[in-house]
C-alpha cells in the first residue's frame, strides 16, 4: 500500500484496513477490530480511547507486533511491524510496570541495552541518564519492590526510552495509579516527550488524560472496535495546570465524551436523520404541491 520511497516523508505508523477476529474451533467468536485505518505522524502524541472491550489495547499490540492482525497491514517507518520489532523500533510500557525484582532499578533500565549488546560503560551511563530524566537518580541501587507504584512506572518509562526507540507504545500505563499521581505522571510524560521527540501511541480510558496529553485523540467504539472519530487537540503547548482549567480544554473533553457516547449508536442516528430528512422533504413537497 505504501510506496517504499514514501517512508521518509510518510507517517511513522500506518495502519491500513486492519481487522482482528478471535475465533474458537474455526468459528469467529469476537470481532475485536474492524476496518481500522490510522496514520501516525513523526513526533506525534496520539491517544486511543474507547470503552472496555473496544480493542484499543489490541490495536496497540498489533502495532507493536505482539499479536498479528486477521487482515490488513501495519507499516512502521516503511517496514512491516515484525521487521520494526526485530529492529527494536518499539519501546513498550504496560499497565503493570513489569520490572524484575532480582534487578536493581538501574539494572532494570539496562535490560534492553544488554539485549542490544551495548558495552557495560555505555549501559551504565545511559541508565543513569534515563533515571535522571524520570527524576529517580537517587534510586539506582534500589530494588523495584522498594518503590511506590508511580515510581515503578517511571522506571518502566526510563527503560522503554533507554534505547531511543522510534515509537513509544503505552498501554494504560497510569490506569492503576490514583488521580493525583496520574496527573503528575502525565506532566512527567509530556516533559519527557518534549525532550526526546519520540512518537507516542497512548492507550487510556480516561478522557481528561487523553485530551491533556495528546495532539490527536482517536475515539473508538466497541464490538466491533472501530474508529468513530479523531479529535484534533489544538491546546497550546507546553501544557500545564492552566490547560486543565481552560475553556478549550473543557470543550475538547466534551467533544471526546460525546463522540464516545454516540459511538456504536451512530448508525441508528444516521438512519433516523435520513428518515426525518425525507419526511421533511415529502412534507415540504406536499406543502408546495
Amino acid at each position, binding site marked *: 500500500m505504501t510506496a517504499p520511497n514514501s517512508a521518509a516523508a510518510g507517517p511513522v505508523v500506518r495502519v491500513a484496513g486492519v481487522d482482528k477476529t478471535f475465533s474458537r474451533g474455526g468459528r469467529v467468536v469476537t470481532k475485536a477490530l474492524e476496518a481500522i485505518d490510522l496514520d501516525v505522524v513523526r513526533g506525534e502524541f496520539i491517544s486511543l480511547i474507547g470503552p472496555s472491550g473496544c480493542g484499543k489495547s489490541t490495536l496497540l499490540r498489533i502495532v*507493536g507486533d*505482539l499479536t498479528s492482525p486477521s487482515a490488513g497491514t501495519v507499516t512502521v517507518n516503511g517496514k512491516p511491524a515484525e521487521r520494526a*520489532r*526485530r*529492529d*527494536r523500533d*518499539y*519501546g*513498550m510500557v*504496560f499497565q*503493570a*510496570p*513489569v*520490572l*524484575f*525484582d*532480582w534487578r536493581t532499578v538501574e539494572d532494570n533500565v539496562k*535490560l*534492553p541495552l*544488554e*539485549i*542490544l549488546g551495548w558495552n557495560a560503560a555505555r549501559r551504565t551511563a545511559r541508565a543513569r541518564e534515563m533515571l535522571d530524566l524520570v527524576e529517580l537518580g537517587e534510586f539506582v541501587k*534500589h*530494588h*523495584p*519492590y*522498594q*518503590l*511506590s*507504584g508511580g*515510581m*515503578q512506572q517511571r522506571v518502566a518509562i526510563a527503560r522503554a526510552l533507554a534505547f531511543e526507540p522510534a515509537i513509544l*507504545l503505552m498501554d494504560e500505563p497510569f490506569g492503576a495509579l490514583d488521580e493525583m499521581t496520574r496527573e503528575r505522571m502525565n506532566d512527567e510524560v509530556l516533559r519527557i516527550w518534549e525532550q526526546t521527540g519520540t512518537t507516542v501511541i497512548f492507550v487510556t480510558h480516561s478522557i481528561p488524560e487523553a485530551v491533556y496529553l495528546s495532539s490527536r485523540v482517536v475515539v473508538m467504539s466497541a464490538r466491533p472496535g472501530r474508529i468513530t472519530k479523531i479529535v484534533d487537540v489544538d491546546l497550546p503547548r507546553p501544557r500545564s495546570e492552566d490547560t486543565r482549567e481552560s475553556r478549550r480544554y473543557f470543550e475538547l473533553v466534551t467533544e471526546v465524551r460525546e463522540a464516545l457516547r454516540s459511538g456504536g449508536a451512530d448508525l441508528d442516528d444516521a438512519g433516523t436523520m435520513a428518515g426525518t430528512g425525507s419526511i421533511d422533504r415529502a412534507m415540504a413537497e406536499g406543502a408546495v404541491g
Partner: protein
Amino acid sequence: MSASAGPLPQTAGVPGRGRTAGQAGRGARSLGTYLPAILVFVGVIVGLELLGNLLKLQTFILPKPSAVLAALGANWSTGRFALLPSALNTLQEALLGLVIGTVVGLVVAFASARWASARGILLPLAVAANAVPIIAFAPLLNNWFGLLNPLSKALMAAVLVFFPIMANVTRGLVQVEPASLELMRSYAASEWTILRKVRIPNALPYFFTALKVATTLSLIGAIVGEYFGGSATVLGRMIVQSASALKFDVTWAAILLGAVTGIVFYLLVALAERVVIPWAAALRGDT
C-alpha cells in the same frame, strides 16, 4: 496471572504485584520473634526431665533428656555406638543423594520447561512415580547397588529429592508473567536470552524452597536406606542396633544427632538462599 500456590509452602511471590513502598526498610528479625519458640522448646525439655524424675519412667520407655545427653557424650566418637562418625557417614550419603537428585531434577525441569512435548511425557510419569511410596524401594536399591555400597543409600535419598526439585523448578521456569514475556518479545529477545534473563532468575526462589525441603528428605532417605542393612557406622544402623540392644538412651542420642544434622543442613541452604537471592527474602518481608 495466577498466584503461584506451589506444592510446597512459601513459594516466591509473583513479581510486579501487590507491592508497596517501604518494605525494604525493615531491619533484621529481632530475637523477640524467636523468643516464644525458644521458651517453649526449653520448657518441653525441662518438662520431660521433671516428668522422668516424677514418674520414675524407665529408660526404655522415655529416657530423660539428661540421660540422652550423657549417652551422646559417652558414645561420641568411640565404642560400639560411635555416633559422630556414623552421623558423618550418613551425612555423606545424604549429600551425595542430594546432589544426584538435584542434578537429575534440574535436568528434567529444564527439559520440560523447554519442550512442551517433554513436559507432556515427563510430568505425568513423575507425578505417578511420586505417588508411589518410594521408601518401599529401599531393599531393592540395596539389592541393585550392594548392601555395603553407600551409593544404594544415596540413591534412596536422590529418589526422594528428585520430585520436589523437578516440580518446583519446572513451575518457576514456566510460570513467568505473560507481560514479562511480551516485554522480552518487544526487545526481539531470543529464547536463550529469555531463559537466562527471565526464566532462571524467576525459578531461583522456587529452587531454594525445594532445596530446603530436599535437605530433610535426603537425610530421611539415607537413614531409611540404612535401616535395611549395610555398613555398621551409620545413624540408621545405630538406631536399629541400639534399640534392639534396649539401649534407648543411645537410640535417642542418635536421633538427636540426626535432627541436629538436619537442622544445620537446612540452615546452610537457607543461608545460601539469603546470599544468592537476597531480594526474594525482602519480597516475602522476612529480611
